[in-house]
């Protein structure tokens, strides 16, 4: 009886989700997410500390406008996983909140699955999910299974679909021992797994994941990461993911969108990001036995030395020349040239400032 309750939206009945994923609502070929010139300006009341200042602010409030997102635009194709990168305060969360419908933008256009998110139409909300690693939706005092039931009713998931999805989530996330415990008794990692499951019971076609692995240990991070990839493969879901853990991004995202101070800094393949923004290469030299003490600082910046293994950082343009000199002048057992780790590149992008990074990319 309840299970057959049709959805409120015209044509949005509880279709089996495998089919729903294969037949998106917007015209074929349309991107799942379209963002154009999106801006969000927060108005912040400025007030100095102290009694007098408080009194003064009662009479005349000083308002400051803080642009959190300052005219960004990008597209995400259906089924794509895109990493959304930027330092704290870059505007990532603000953007995700606008895309999921929590925030009204100050200006600009967004279309997700053909919907304007902040209208928060039910047929839109039923197709998306927002997971925030530092927020929770599960009811603290009761087992997760009960919260899942509540979501089933709210999203009007047919019982058979619900069972199937739940079984799948239990298997992929290894939840069977957790479901009947009150949520407050779960560890952070266990709770996060349940949060992720709760957010996916309605089989959303677009996932906004804001730091889904924050605060988790490495094993749990890997587990969640693997799960997100698996969910994307099985259901063709579109995923926009922010994370401070580059391992997440490297494992999941072929493409990244980088923002800094609310502006778009880069949109493209992860490998291209490294090439464009890293002005350096890393050369690892293994020295012959007996030559362990040789000083290589004249060849480049020595980053690490350990038991006959020296890591050098050299300007990208000089790589070939330095390699040649090394091979000619030093007793080398082995030599590898590599891009620096992605963390380093990202750090460089953000700390170097936009101008420096762009110049490095151009060179």
């Amino acid at each position, binding site marked *: 009886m309840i299970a057959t309750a049709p959805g409120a939206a015209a044509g949005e009945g509880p279709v089996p989700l495998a089919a729903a994923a294969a037949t998106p609502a917007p015209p074929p070929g349309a991107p799942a997410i379209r963002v154009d010139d999106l801006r969000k300006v927060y*108005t912040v009341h400025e007030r100095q500390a102290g009694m007098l200042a408080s009194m003064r602010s009662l009479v005349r409030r000083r308002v400051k406008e803080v642009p959190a997102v300052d005219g960004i635009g990008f597209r995400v194709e259906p089924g794509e996983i895109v990493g959304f990168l930027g330092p704290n305060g870059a505007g990532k969360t603000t953007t995700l909140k606008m895309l999921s419908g*929590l925030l009204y933008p100050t200006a600009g256009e967004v279309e997700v699955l053909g919907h304007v998110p902040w209208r928060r139409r039910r047929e839109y*909300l039923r197709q998306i*999910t927002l997971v925030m690693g530092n927020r929770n*939706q599960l009811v603290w005092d009761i087992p997760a299974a009960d919260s899942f039931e509540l979501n089933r009713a709210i999203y009007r998931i047919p019982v058979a679909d619900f069972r199937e999805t739940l079984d799948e989530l239990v298997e992929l996330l290894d939840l069977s021992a957790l479901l009947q415990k009150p949520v407050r008794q779960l560890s952070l990692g266990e709770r996060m797994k349940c949060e992720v499951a709760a957010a996916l019971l309605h089989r959303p076609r677009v996932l906004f994941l804001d730091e889904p692995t924050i605060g988790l240990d490495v094993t749990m991070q890997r587990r969640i990461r693997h799960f997100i990839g698996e969910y994307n493969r099985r259901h063709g879901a579109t995923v926009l993911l922010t994370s401070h853990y580059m391992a997440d991004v490297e494992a999941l995202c072929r493409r990244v969108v980088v923002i800094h101070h609310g502006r778009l800094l880069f949109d493209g393949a992860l490998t291209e990001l490294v090439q464009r923004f890293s002005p350096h290469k890393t050369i690892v030299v293994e020295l012959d036995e007996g030559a362990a003490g040789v000083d290589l600082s004249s060849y480049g910046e020595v980053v690490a030395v350990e038991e006959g293994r020296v890591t050098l950082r050299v300007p990208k343009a000089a790589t070939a020349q330095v390699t040649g000199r090394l091979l000619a002048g030093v007793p080398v057992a082995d030599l590898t040239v590599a891009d620096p780790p992605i963390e380093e590149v990202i750090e460089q992008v953000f700390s170097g400032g936009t101008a420096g990074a762009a110049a490095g990319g151009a060179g």
Partner: protein
Amino acid sequence: MSPLATLGGELAGLWAAYVARFKVAIGVQFQYRASLVIWLVWTVMESVVYLVVWSTVAQSSGGQVGGYDAAGFAAYFLVTMVVNQLTFTWIMHEFEYRVRQGQLSPLLLKPLHPIHGDIAENVTYKALTSVVLVPALVLLCWAFRPALQPQPWMAAAFLPAVLLAFLLRFLSGWTLALAGFWTTRVLAINQLYYMAMLFLSGQMVPLSLLPGPVQALAAVLPFRWMVAFPVELLLGQLTPEETLAGFGAQLAWIAVHAAAAAVVWRAGLRRYSAVGA
């Protein structure tokens, strides 16, 4: 699909959501049995105190005050206790916390308006507390012998009157709770509301015993329709015409509050959005 079938499906879906919410609320409330009991004791005690005070006043003034004798007061305050139990709402004490802690955001992303969850929680709480309150009530009736002989039509009209009173009181409390979107100092506002309820809804004293100007004030404000109206109805103080007029007033106030709730909700969401959700 016919519009009727669509509506039927819509209602069935809503009902399922309510049932699920009831279950969650029961699970949560059972974790807080102690506070449940404390609240019950408070509810009963409050009524008993008013009852005893006014009965004493009546006895010391020659058996009657303003048409109420001891049994009359017993009837008034016991029925008031029941009506108050069925209609009271506490959402304004929680909403500001919800906004401040960011707990509203997940609710906003659900394809169901958050007010449904609040109503379901309220009703669940009432259902749970009634299990203890009903025996308490029987005990109080035995102790205080209220004079209560409503005619059948009054008893019949009492139910919709309480239901409308609940809707009205819930909507006003919910709208007030939305102040949490604008300020973190909702306590003062809540206190003011609580005081107005206490004096102008008939909770502390029958409205007919209030001084003239206060009665006039009570007549033009919505509070009396949240408690006093169903109480007076069951006590047989209203004619059928007055009862019908009362239903009209309740419906009108509900319409006003529903409109206010919708407007304030929309403005509140804008505000919530402006500061970052």
